[in-house]
């Protein structure tokens, strides 16, 4: 074929007449200086227009990858109103006073705590600050924690009252019991019931299989109940398959090391649960923490990590509903981010499975995300199903990987049959029309309660749809005072302080349930209204 010298391009497909053949013997060029003009092969650099096929290597090396357009996605995780400077200052001052009094107390009075015997010359077992905190700060409010109950933790609960003679060093039982409305237990759909279809199924399972299988799943601990439960869980969540574990905490602690290994990078939310943190520690992965629900910070971290080009995979680990903040993860936005940058997503739905979404399938249902877009769906059966245990669900390969490499299949004993039967019945009930009624009544209760709290003027955190409602009280003393007074009025709630929350943001947490009636909620709100001025809780400035 003749080489056509048309505008500098060598086009091999064109046939041209012999007359257009260039002379390749340099006779038509001036080569006086011995150099051959490079334009002879048709390539004239100076006349050449750039980008013949559109590929400009230099331009791409400099051009930044596009950022996410967050206006396209719903990234609102909930409201987190900040308190006034005065409140923050007073809280800090209160803490200093508490510490100072603790020091004085320690100097003047010997603590009534046990000391070690027969261990002279040994290194002290505990860290002195931990001991100081637990004896002089935590002890003062210890009576609101670890409260024993003696009935089903349903919509109402019976508390066993305690007294203390020595300022909370030790407790005794007064012998009286108090029936309270239960806003403290995780009973979102009201399945914690001593009678009913679930209890009958649990009874039948105990009579058939006994109390426990006494063997791990890999040996002689698997039963048809486990297999049915796994099948039902997978169908419930809309994924290919699932595996169940005997304890919710252990699901993360034993499943994560099987899934991730060194060489992976994990981007973890700052408020992730202790079980996730333990699982990531045991997996020996590198962890980078991003600010709570802050997708922009996550994007910056993810882009920096991808640019480093040394990680085998990058996994984002988040929870569906955070139980201390009441916020919901912006799942649609995260899935969009993950697809754009090639990341993976691990979603811990401990508090959201069963409780969120119009059909109760969790945050994927609530945010309208396809469950197959989330790589690993993990959850527990403790909260919405009234049982114990956890699951990991996803594609069939993922589940096989967790079973083969996770630590629970070979070493940890399988789920007790009564618990498995309870979960199975509860899950089928949620999928039925009666279950949708429960989910809807939980949602109505949530909206009503949050609206009334807002009208009352107290500061609540979180998203409007989350059934966990934290009410900020900021100081330890107010936390203890509120819980005491609410209990006296027949409402059992939970006070949470350091270290589960930051030191100056103690809160009261209300956990709503589908089993609560409107009258019960009104009673609770009336009790709260009674004390809100006495304790001074109207922090909201809206």
């Amino acid at each position, binding site marked *: 074929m003749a080489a056509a010298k048309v505008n500098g391009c060598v086009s091999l497909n064109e046939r041209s007449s012999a007359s257009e053949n260039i002379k390749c013997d340099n006779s038509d060029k001036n080569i006086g200086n011995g150099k051959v003009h490079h334009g002879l092969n048709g390539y004239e650099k100076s006349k050449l227009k750039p980008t013949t096929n559109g590929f400009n290597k230099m331009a791409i090396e400099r051009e930044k990858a596009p950022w996410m357009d967050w206006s396209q996605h719903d990234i609102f995780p909930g409201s987190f109103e900040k308190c006034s400077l005065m409140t923050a200052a007073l809280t800090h001052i209160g803490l200093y006073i508490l510490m100072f009094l603790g020091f004085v107390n320690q100097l003047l009075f010997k603590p009534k705590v046990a*000391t070690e015997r027969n261990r002279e*010359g040994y290194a002290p077992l505990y860290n002195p600050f931990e001991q100081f905190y637990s004896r002089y700060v935590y002890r003062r409010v210890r009576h609101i924690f670890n409260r024993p109950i003696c009935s089903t*933790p349903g919509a109402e609960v019976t508390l066993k009252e305690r007294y203390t003679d020595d300022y909370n060093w030790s407790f005794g039982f007064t012998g009286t019991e108090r029936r309270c409305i239960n806003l403290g237990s995780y009973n979102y759909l009201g399945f914690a019931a001593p009678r009913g279809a679930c209890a009958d199924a649990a009874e039948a399972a105990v009579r058939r299989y006994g*109390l426990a299988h*006494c063997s791990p799943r890999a040996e002689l601990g698997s039963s048809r109940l486990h297999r049915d439960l796994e099948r039902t869980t997978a169908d419930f969540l809309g994924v290919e398959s699932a595996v169940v574990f005997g304890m919710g905490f252990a699901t993360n602690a034993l499943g994560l090391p099987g899934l991730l290994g060194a060489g992976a990078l994990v981007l973890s939310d700052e408020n992730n649960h202790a079980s996730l943190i333990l699982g990531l520690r045991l997996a020996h992965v590198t962890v980078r923490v991003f600010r709570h629900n802050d997708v922009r910070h996550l994007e910056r971290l993810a882009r920096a990590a991808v640019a480093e080009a040394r990680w085998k995979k990058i*996994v984002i680990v988040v929870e569906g509903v955070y139980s201390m903040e009441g916020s919901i993860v912006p799942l649609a936005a995260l899935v969009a981010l993950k697809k754009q940058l090639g990341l993976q997503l691990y979603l811990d739905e401990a508090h959201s499975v069963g409780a969120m979404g119009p059909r109760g399938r969790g945050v994927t249902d609530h945010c309208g995300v396809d469950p197959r877009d989330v790589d690993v769906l993990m959850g527990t059966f*403790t909260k919405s199903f009234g049982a114990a245990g956890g699951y990991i669900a996803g594609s069939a390969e993922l589940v096989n990987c967790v079973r083969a490499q996770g630590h629970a299949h070979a070493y940890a004993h399988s789920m007790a049959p*009564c618990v498995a039967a309870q979960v199975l019945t509860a899950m089928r009930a949620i999928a039925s029309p009666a279950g949708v009624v429960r989910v809807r009544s939980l949602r109505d209760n949530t909206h009503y309660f949050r609206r009334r709290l807002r009208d009352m003027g107290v500061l609540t955190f979180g998203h409007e749809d989350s059934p966990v409602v934290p009410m900020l009280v900021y100081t330890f003393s107010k936390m203890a005072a509120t819980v005491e007074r609410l209990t006296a009025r027949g409402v059992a709630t939970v006070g949470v302080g350091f270290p589960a929350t930051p030191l100056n943001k103690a809160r009261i947490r209300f956990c709503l349930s589908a089993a609560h009636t409107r009258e019960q909620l009104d009673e609770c709100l009336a009790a709260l209204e009674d004390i809100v001025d006495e304790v001074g809780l109207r922090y909201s400035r809206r």
Partner: protein
Amino acid sequence: MILMDIYDTVSWWTLVIAVQVVIGSVYFLWQKKPKEIEDKLTKQKLMEWKPLPLVERTFEVEEPILIDDIGENVLNVGTTSFLCLDKVPSIVESSIKSLHKYGVGSCGPRGFYGTIDVHLELEERLAKFMQVEETCVYSYGFSTVASAISAYAKKGDIIFADEKVWFAIQKGIDAARSTVRYFKHNDMNDLERLLNEAAAKKELNPKRRAFLIAEAIYFNSGKMCPLRKLVELARRFKLRIMLDESLTIGVIGKHGRGLTEHLNVPRDEIDLIIGSLEHSFATVGGFCAGTHFIVEHQRLSGLGYCFSASQPPMLTQAAISALDIIEENPAIISELDENSKKLNKALANLKHYTFSGDELSPVKHIYLKNTELPDRLKHSHLRNITNYCLENGVAMAVAAYLRDTEVNCPEPSIRLASSRKLNDANIAQICTLLDEAYEKVGPK
């Protein structure tokens, strides 16, 4: 003169407020602002980023046998229910009564209305049974050990552990991030050598906590630990002992109190005794026993205790009822011990296998005599042997291990669990079946 002015109240207050303002502003200005991350991601790098899929290869999982497919008359020596308390009518009835009072789940961690009166009762009863000051109950056996170790041992500490401790202890040590020295299995001379070396290198000093972790009867080998010698070494080198008595509580000792009762070692020599409710008591859960000083710490720092829902009340009630039976009827423990001894005698006569296990140990490990085969092949042969035995009326378990993750993974074996209801005919059946299986489907 100036002093007189300062004593003036107004000036005094001004000084106080000024000092506070200075301290406050210094604090706020000195707070390190988080460094803004510079964005380096270009389109080129994004195109070149090829992450591995989350699951890198497909895994083959052996489908385990379903317990429903095992008939009623099959002799079960694979599950570790040594005292056969898993289907006793009195326990079943009491747990169903508890179900009708409390429901199934406890719906909360111990700190937040998850403490039910049955939990307190179980803790008191266990403390009285073990003759210790206090116990705390966990909802899962695996988490008990892992949380207990990491509650006390932290990054700068040193742990001496036997090389054949079971997996949960290894994970507890891993979570603690302490320095760990493994000594040869049950070899007290090796431990002494390691301790002397550590003392010489000044690793053992009064500022650094040191722990010694051992199991009373090792789950991975069936041998008993020499507790007296361990206690003596611990006292000499100032180590704290954590003893995992999962397999010995309710199994050895005149009343079933474990190795300390059997060897007559005073119980307060052991700092922490870790027990399991998943073997002799036939429910799901675990507990830690010790002095109030030690156990109280776990109520705030044991991760599996604070951050997990408490044990379901019906399983707790089952543990209480099982404890009732053990306390009223200590003869069942001696029945179990008799059977364990008989099993040892019978297993010594096997033609094609060796076994390991103390005569009082409720678990025996049976290994193939032919030791040249690789582990993978041994495992599949043992699997064929146990399948054959199952078809012929005895259910056994091949010990499951994660070969790649274990420290010192043991050889593949069949783990036989003795039980108090075994009679001579059963034992003979087990032995003949094992030999027969080897001849029919074993390695050629």
